[in-house]
């Protein structure tokens, strides 16, 4: 469907999800997804506002305009099909609509179907899809867990017998690569989300291998191999299960936490080559390394865990400030650094596919939990996870 509306990214138009009969579960998910997109001021309707829906077939534009809303999203059951209509209230007409069939609400796929519709509604208005049809991976109690964006469908992906760390998503959302730490060493394993056996990544059977990251096409995996010769970044072809290439050579420096630019041409990574850990870039073949995130020598705290944004315009990382890590972003073209957090310890940022939401770990509520910040508005929310959570990774949009 073509984008039909004019959207000012600096403003948050107000939006209302209209009440209706039937499809209550889907409507609740849709309402929450649109709220958590942070693109709109969502209008909360008073109780017993069912009368606002007006007569069947005739949408009551006047009433919704009086609520101050710019858009109304209507979800209706039309002969067993779910009809989603976006009303442009100022113009008094339907701006976009789609019909679909949802699985029963008890079906495991149901919620993700609604999330995809929510993301489509966001795209109708803003030109960029929402981030509801996504998942998080994170570590809790030494296991990698996967959970839907809305905290539903939590499940452990890795065995209890090893300490699993540093999960990262394949671009298609179908696989997770992670470090399996056992007796102080460990391979990087690739685990299909749908189940089945995990397979080791080439070059990781010896030593300790950490901080994996897929290339944007999903064919390569960059990671760090830590041995007594040092900690250095390698890249392996995981599509053909071969071809390990070493990208950094640091006798007295650690090089770790690689992250690909979205065009695959460069990687950002952490290195201790100048003393404290800071963020550098290099070509995908390991040449042409240079400092990436500026720092004042002897003043700026160590900087870790970089992640390149999906559009490539920003990089997120954490940096020690007065003894606590804080989450920062830097715009790649201007190399300007912006601090996003200041309360408690905040670390290990990971980008949403929309390039404006960042999830990170914070202990501001007492123990380490996952939080999400909208970097445009500063709006922040907590994701509730069982026990302490850390090392989050946000998937791309799931088809």
């Amino acid at each position, binding site marked *: 469907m073509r984008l039909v509306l004019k959207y000012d990214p600096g403003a948050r138009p107000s939006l209302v999800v209209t009440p209706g009969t039937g499809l209550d579960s889907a409507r609740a998910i849709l309402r929450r997804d649109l709220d958590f997109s942070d693109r709109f001021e969502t209008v909360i309707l008073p109780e017993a506002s069912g009368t606002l829906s007006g007569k069947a077939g005739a949408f009551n534009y006047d009433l919704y305009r009086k609520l101050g809303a710019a858009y109304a999203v209507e979800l209706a059951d039309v002969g067993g099909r779910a009809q989603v209509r976006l009303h442009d209230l100022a113009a008094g007409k339907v701006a976009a609509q789609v019909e679909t069939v949802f699985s029963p609400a008890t079906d495991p796929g149901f919620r993700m179907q609604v999330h995809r519709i929510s993301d489509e509604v966001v795209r109708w208005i803003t030109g960029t899809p929402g981030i509801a049809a996504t998942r998080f991976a994170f570590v809790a109690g*030494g296991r990698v867990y996967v959970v839907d964006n809305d905290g539903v469908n939590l499940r452990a992906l890795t065995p209890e017998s090893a*300490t699993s*760390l*540093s999960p990262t998503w394949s671009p298609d959302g179908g696989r997770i690569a992670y*470090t399996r*730490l056992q*007796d*102080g*060493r460990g391979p990087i394993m690739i685990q299909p989300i749908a189940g089945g056996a995990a397979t080791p990544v080439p070059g990781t059977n010896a030593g*300790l291998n*950490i*901080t994996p990251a897929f290339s944007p096409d999903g064919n390569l995996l960059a990671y*760090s191999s*830590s*041995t*007594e010769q040092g*900690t250095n970044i390698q890249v392996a072809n995981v599509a053909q299960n071969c071809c390990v290439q070493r990208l950094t050579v640091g006798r*007295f*420096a*650690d090089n*770790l*936490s690689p992250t690909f630019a979205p065009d695959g041409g460069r990687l950002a990574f*952490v290195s*201790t080559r*100048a*003393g*404290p*850990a800071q963020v550098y870039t290099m070509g995908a073949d390991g040449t042409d390394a240079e400092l990436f995130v500026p720092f004042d*020598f*002897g003043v700026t705290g*160590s900087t*870790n*865990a970089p992640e390149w944004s999906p559009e490539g315009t920003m990089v997120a990382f*954490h940096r020690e400030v007065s*003894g606590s*890590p804080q989450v920062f972003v830097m715009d790649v073209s201007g190399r300007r650094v912006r601090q996003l957090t200041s309360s408690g310890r905040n*670390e*290990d940022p990971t980008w949403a596919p929309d390039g404006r939401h960042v999830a990170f770990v914070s202990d501001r509520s007492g123990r380490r939990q996952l939080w999400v910040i909208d970097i445009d508005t500063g709006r922040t929310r907590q994701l509730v996870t069982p026990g302490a959570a*850390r*090392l989050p990774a946000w998937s791309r949009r799931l088809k």
Partner: protein
Amino acid sequence: MNARPLAFALASVVMLAACGGKQEPELPAPEPAPAPVATAPTGPNADSAAAAERERLERERREREAALAGAVGTDLKSMIHFDYDMADVRADDAANLDRKAAILAANPGVRVRISGHADERGSDEYNLALGMRRATAAKRYLENKGVEGARIEVVSFGEERPLAAGADEAAFANNRRDEFDVTAGGTNLVAPQ
């Protein structure tokens, strides 16, 4: 902060200089490495064979621990500690490592595993690399004292295995450490001359 690699290099030079006047101890060939443990046997007797193997390993582990309970074993296993975000062997740990080097010289069949650990403050992933540097620093020190490198394995647990709970300086200091485990030849330890 640029002084860290330099300091490490200098420390190595100093160590080399310090032991340059002494005769390198003659080291007999070390015992062969233990057979791999994880090879899964197959066939009808696989389970009982695996059980017997587990029993043997457990017996060996108990014998090793009993033997290591003595003074020599205690010295061999005693930990060393590190400053925050540093991997240089501290001056106050030099005597500890010197003693280990002497024990290893007197017990040529002994193999050790050094595991590096970090406190919880730094980045989780960075701490894995830091732990590896800490384990390697102790290995290099022992090598410079004449211990053959092949007898020493290095691993890192980062901040994943804290010894001390708590988020205070004392707990942090306890957790920034190298642990030393005897992986072979730990029975009948001989005290160095």
